[in-house]
């Protein structure tokens, strides 16, 4: 097969004014063949996006060379040909959209090629049909959902008819349904013969590819099939990566059932392997089968209130309309019911645009109820005279991608901002900042005087969380806390959040990552189109199965496996979402009778 992209010993440094250049790629050689499907993985700061930008001459190598379809990217005269060959879709679709109408935006690329209006029209139509947006052609892009906007960005690239498309973390901000659609599109483009290169933090997505390249400090350290790359978890961890969720589960199960084969990456494979195991066990069993029992550990793990807990937040009939009284009025919340108990971790899930962020903003008084009732602690938020400042003191809100809101020069000052406004100073302030930094795992002495712009993405996220924690809230609201983090930063943040809850703080988090929600929260609320449709413990909510998919969501992998086994007649108890519970239950089924 023809190589479409060749990187030959490429090195690249970002120039830093008044300081040493920051190296991003180091002596990187890579060859991508026409028609391949390559996933590029790596921790935050490993050079993935820098690499992507070399592939269509957005960046030029300091050393070495990049050749695209036989053309050296350094030759300026070839640049438009190169960009016509390799298209790129970026993470935030709203930053790629130039025009105010869907069809006009798709036309931007072909217009740059200098095609005739008729040719442009043909291309716009076929691109919009390919991503299923033809019916939306006359709408303004900002009226589209996040998933649709991402598809629009892709249509804009498809209209140029490139031979290779690079996807730079396009699924990071999408809900499960949006991610499923994006993955299906990539797979289809690949089937049609396009070369697909995808950069992602989600290990599951790498499984779709035929080849996985792992970057670390600007070098390609692993390169092989998904099976090769994910064969050894010990090798991945130092690189800031993780196994896909299914592989992690398979790994945990193998510790209990060594007979399971290694290298199980997909759910069907894992189900087949467990089936095979069950058949063998059944053959081994000569005596009467022992009744399935749920072990102590499983019983202890099943959630349930031990004593009647008090509700910290109670909402009923809550409604909100944005831009009320303008031509752009848009209903965001309708008849929302919510109850959060003191001390619990409460998950909020729902498709993009289902009203999660709007609801969170009601809980600390950023938005006042237009309809219905809302009580937080002892404050009635429907009362216009309620002390909102006091509400904000007990309810902290960490926004999506909170690191963009950092404004102080030093880490310590950033975290001290809130407590300082609350009147703390001197030694008390110092202590408070130290306490908050400890909670997120930032060392006070070594981090307080660091520049906020010079720390890594994961560290910035921690600073932003600490800046809210420093107010010592009773209830901490987190909007997509793990979005955009690499697997190891994500894992660490989840552990820290769990510790906060153990320390008595009530948490509420909204997330598109079902694994995170399942891992952290005891109770869940599901939102669909602005209203709450279901709430209960994780087992109840994730036990509803197919309905979740209709709502644009999915089950976490443990529940999916339990469901798949149940369909095969394993007759498991309904609503298994916890890995330990599943392991115990499977153990009881697969153990040869003594």
């Amino acid at each position, binding site marked *: 097969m023809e190589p479409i992209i060749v990187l030959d010993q490429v090195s690249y440094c970002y120039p830093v004014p008044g300081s040493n250049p920051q190296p991003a790629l180091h002596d990187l050689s890579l060859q991508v063949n026409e028609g391949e499907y390559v996933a590029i993985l790596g921790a935050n700061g490993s050079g993935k996006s820098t690499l992507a930008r070399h592939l269509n001459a*957005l960046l030029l190598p300091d050393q070495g060379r990049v050749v695209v379809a036989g053309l050296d990217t350094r030759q300026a005269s070839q640049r*438009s040909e190169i*960009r*016509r060959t390799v*298209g790129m879709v*970026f993470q*935030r679709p*709203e*930053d*790629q*959209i*130039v*025009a*105010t*109408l869907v069809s*006009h935006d798709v*036309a*931007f690329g*072909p*217009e*740059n*090629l*200098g*095609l*005739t*209006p008729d040719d*442009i029209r043909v291309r*716009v139509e076929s691109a919009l049909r390919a991503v299923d947006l033809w019916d939306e052609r*006359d709408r*303004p892009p*900002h009226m589209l959902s996040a998933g649709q906007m991402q598809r629009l960005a892709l249509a*804009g690239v498809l209209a*140029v008819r490139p031979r290779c498309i690079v996807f730079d973390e396009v699924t990071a901000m999408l809900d499960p349904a949006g991610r499923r659609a994006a993955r299906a599109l990539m797979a289809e483009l690949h089937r049609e013969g396009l070369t697909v290169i995808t950069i992602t933090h989600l290990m599951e997505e790498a499984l779709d590819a035929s080849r996985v390249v792992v970057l670390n400090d600007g070098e390609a350290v692993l390169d092989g099939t998904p099976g090769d790359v994910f064969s050894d978890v010990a090798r991945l961890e130092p690189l800031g990566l993780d196994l896909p969720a299914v592989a992690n589960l398979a790994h945990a199960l193998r510790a209990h059932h060594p007979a399971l084969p290694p290298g199980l990456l997909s759910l069907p494979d894992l189900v087949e392997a467990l089936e095979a195991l069950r058949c063998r066990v059944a053959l081994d069993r000569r005596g009467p089968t022992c009744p399935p029992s749920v072990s102590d550990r499983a019983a202890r793990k099943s959630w349930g209130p031990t004593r009647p807990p008090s509700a910290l937040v109670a909402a009923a009939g809550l409604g909100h309309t*944005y*831009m*009320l009284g*303008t*031509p752009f009025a848009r209903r965001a919340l309708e008849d929302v019911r919510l109850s959060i108990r003191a001390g619990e971790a409460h998950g909020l899930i729902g498709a993009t645009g289902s009203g999660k962020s709007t609801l969170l*903003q009601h809980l*600390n008084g*950023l*938005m*006042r109820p237009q309809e219905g009732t809302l009580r937080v602690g002892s404050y009635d938020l429907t009362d216009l005279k309620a002390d909102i*400042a006091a509400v*904000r*003191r007990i309810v*902290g*809100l960490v*926004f999506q991608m*909170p690191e*963009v*809101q*950092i*404004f102080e020069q030093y880490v310590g000052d950033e975290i001290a*901002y*809130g407590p300082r*406004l*609350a009147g703390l100073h001197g030694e008390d302030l110092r202590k408070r900042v130290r306490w908050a930094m400890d909670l997120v795992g930032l060392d006070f002495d070594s981090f307080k005087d660091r520049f906020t712009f010079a720390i890594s993405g994961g560290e910035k996220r921690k600073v932003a969380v600490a800046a*809210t924690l420093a*107010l010592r809230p009773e209830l901490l609201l987190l909007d997509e806390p793990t979005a955009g983090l690499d697997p190891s930063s994500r894992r660490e943040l989840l552990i820290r959040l769990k510790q906060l809850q153990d320390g008595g703080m009530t948490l509420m988090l909204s997330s598109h990552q079902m694994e995170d929600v399942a891992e952290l929260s005891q109770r869940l609320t599901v939102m669909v189109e602005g209203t709450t449709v279901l709430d209960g413990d994780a087992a109840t909510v994730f036990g509803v199965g197919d309905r979740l998919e209709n709502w644009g969501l999915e089950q976490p992998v443990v529940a999916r496996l339990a469901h798949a086994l149940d369909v095969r007649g394993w007759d498991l108890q309904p609503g298994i979402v916890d890995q330990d519970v599943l392991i115990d239950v499977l153990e009881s089924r697969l153990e040869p009778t003594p």
Partner: protein
Amino acid sequence: MSEFEFQRYVTIGQYIPTDSIIHRLDPRTRIMGGLFLLLAVTLAPSLAGLLLALVLVVALTRMARVPVGYALRGLLAPLPFIAFLALLQVVLSPASGAAPTLWQWGPLRISMLGIANSIRVVLRFPALILLITTASACTSTSEMVRGLEALLHPLTRIRLPVQDFVLMVQVALRFVPLLAREAERIAKSQASRGAVWGTGRGGPLRRARQALPIFVPLFLVSLQRAESLAIAMDARGYRSFGERTSLVSLHFTRADFLALLACLAASVLIGLV
């Protein structure tokens, strides 16, 4: 009602697709006609002319099927400024022979001229804001860009970067609502951390310091977004002096000719009355 819904007050630059007769005109007609009227409203010397302008602009807004109340909301933000300007006009207008002085105290004087000047300010601003809001409500940025590009095309002959300029205008307009949303998000985030807005306490230095938590991130975010957009445009093959074509083809019809003529006539009338 939320203190944070900044977008509510940004009415300028919002396209409202109502498909009115004005929406169906050639973008060049809308741009040129709008410019004529804008010039006339800005320069109109007489009270009668301004009154006529206000009536015409309200009629235009109705014709474009843009809710007048909504369009006028854009006035809320500059209202204190307009009031102040009007007041200055009343008390600081110079004496003149023709206009009798009604009241005088030191350098401050109220004259008929001052009152007339002040009424002019009060009429001119709503007319301007209505006109600009309506114009932007009727013209999507892509149409405006196409129109501008066609109108300015002759300038490319003297190697002026018309395409870049036009695209700059387009992107700036697209970013207005985006930045309003971003500012809203940042303000909310800082409010969650205990910041209080609009208390108006403390001296100017202290107030400037209060604004820092919004402006620094907003500035950084805008830069980041501008950079991402530039990269995305580059990746989609945009070149400053490249030969570009367009999806939209422009058709200048009889209706356009008549509309343009009407605008020109109205503008002259406003200027001369």
